[in-house]
């Protein structure tokens, strides 16, 4: 019996030594080459070999730009979902896992062997790509890295009545946690994490909040109840006015994010592969603001009250797309670099103006654009563009940067989709 035990022990020892000596250590240091689907700039995606330079461990998706986590729960407690009272009381995250991505190796290129590993690798590539992109014009100044990204969590809004509203097919930046979330994608189009435009769009929100000193997260301003059909700002309380201004500032945030998504992806219809129905986000579709300042105020309040879905942010995206298409056209005149830098420089001015006036004045789209140009004398072609979009509110007479020009701006008839 002793002999048998001895033989088994020797055999096991040999095998365990053999097993341990073959344990694979991470063999890729520094740069990982990974094969992921990338857009060719015209909406077609192809598998392409890319380099990940910031990643320290590809299996756990950690690196100097972002750390990716998977699953778990993100829950927002809000006042009342049905009353569209989305003032967020508390946000909790729990149960996230450190990924363990799987790869095959072909030459020195890693091939994700499953969908999750492919998604995580692609999100990691775009987090790195967007950092480089925004570094290109110093937009990341004072922002901290690595930041956190959660892929495929259960993301829910819950109110005090325990009504819940789950979020899917979307992506979000949660400014109070400095956290990015890519929700489970249930549709048959391109999942959002694969869409570089989406990643750049969400990342811009981080920059917007940082450059505006988080004025948007003055959450108490969102909880005021709006009353229909205001004729002027005198019909609104300071709190109601602040809420309307927050909604319109959110639209600006979304519109600028759409413009930067285009600049990163170089595809004007960057959202199309992920949301074919959402044609209005194509920055090439020219739109104009319908109505003067009073009309805009009325429209925003009424839209907000009439919306039958708690996802009122959709409206902000739609209004924002007017800004996006405007900045797209401006970049065609000014060039991308000048436009991008001008937007960055504008954000602190916008924040200052917002903080000062949010409870006393309606910060209409025309006024916002006036703050953007900051009384800078504009060329006739830029003036023409401004007045063609914001002409119901801004005119040669009241828009200082264009005073003295003789321009006949072509007015648009439709606002677009």
């Amino acid at each position: 019996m002793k002999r048998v035990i001895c033989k088994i022990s020797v055999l096991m020892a040999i095998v365990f030594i053999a097993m341990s000596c073959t344990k694979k250590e991470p063999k890729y240091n520094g740069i990982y080459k990974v094969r992921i689907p990338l857009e060719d700039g015209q909406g077609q995606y192809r598998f392409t070999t890319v380099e990940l330079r910031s990643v320290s461990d590809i299996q756990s998706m950690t690196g100097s730009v972002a750390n990716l986590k998977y699953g778990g729960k993100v829950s927002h407690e809000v006042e009342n979902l049905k009353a569209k009272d989305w003032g967020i009381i508390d946000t909790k995250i729990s149960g996230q896992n450190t990924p363990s991505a799987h790869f095959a190796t072909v030459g020195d290129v890693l091939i994700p062997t499953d969908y999750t590993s492919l998604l995580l690798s692609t999100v990691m590539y775009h987090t790195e790509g967007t950092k480089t992109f925004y570094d290109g014009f110093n937009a990341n100044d004072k922002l901290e890295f690595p930041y956190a990204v959660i892929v495929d969590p259960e993301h829910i809004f819950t109110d005090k009545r325990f009504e819940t509203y789950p979020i899917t097919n979307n992506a979000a930046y949660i400014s109070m946690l400095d956290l990015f979330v890519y929700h489970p994608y249930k549709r048959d189009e391109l999942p959002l994490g694969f869409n570089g435009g989406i990643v750049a769009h969400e990342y811009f929100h981080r920059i917007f909040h940082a450059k505006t000193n988080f004025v948007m997260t003055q959450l108490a301003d969102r909880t005021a109840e709006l009353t229909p059909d205001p004729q002027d700002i005198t019909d609104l309380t300071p709190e109601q006015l602040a809420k309307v201004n927050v909604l319109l500032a959110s639209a600006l945030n979304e519109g600028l994010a759409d413009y930067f998504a285009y600049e990163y992806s170089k595809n004007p219809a960057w959202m199309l592969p992920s949301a074919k129905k959402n044609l209005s986000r194509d920055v090439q579709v020219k739109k104009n603001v319908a109505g003067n300042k009073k009309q805009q105020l009325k429209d925003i309040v009424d839209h907000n009250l009439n919306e039958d879905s708690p996802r009122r942010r959709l409206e902000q995206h739609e209004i924002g797309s007017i800004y996006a298409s405007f900045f797209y056209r401006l970049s065609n005149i000014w060039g991308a670099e000048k436009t991008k830098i001008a937007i960055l420089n504008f954000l602190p001015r916008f924040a200052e103006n917002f903080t000062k006036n949010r409870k006393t004045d309606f910060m209409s789209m025309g006024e916002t654009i006036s703050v953007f140009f900051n009384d800078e004398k504009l060329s006739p072609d830029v003036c023409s563009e401004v007045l063609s979009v914001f002409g119901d509110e801004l005119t040669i007479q009241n828009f200082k940067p264009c005073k003295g020009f003789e321009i006949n701006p072509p007015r648009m008839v439709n606002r677009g989709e």
Partner: protein
Amino acid sequence: MRVLCLFLILMSLNLFGVTSYAADFYLGPQFGKTSYTPPTGEKDRVSEYSYGGDVMAFKGPYGAGFHLSYLPYPTDGNATVSVQQSDLLMTLEAKYRYEFNNHINPYVTFGAGSLYKTVKSSVMGMSEKSSDFYFVQDIGLGIMGVLFKDFGYNAAVKYYQYSNVDGYNYTLSLGYFSSHIL
């Protein structure tokens, strides 16, 4: 390194004289379930069905075998982006059994070999295929024996590991069993 490890395992067979003649022989198709660590980092392993075959020979308590199994994973993703992978596992195994009687032979098993993985990735209707070999090692427990005449069974559970994947392989096999093969 992998060759050296394989050599050590094979040497262990030689050490105990297994490379001489075998007295019992088993050959049969196997059906199994393989669990594996998911890329999501979740602790619970995911399981898929696999199938293949087992060959083994014993002389006294010592045995050697060859295990082959195929694991087709379900397609993962959606209509626009998807990944489909499959594993072909081949291992050489060293075994040690305890003979209660002809019908019940519990054994321990150690294996090493290679896993051939193929990956088909698709985006927007464009696909590409890749493949890779991994060194795989396993350790497990099993039971085999004669059911009647030349018909036998083999059931095993093995813990396996390759790259950053590990899991359990549960297999059941019914097949040809001979005590007079050599």
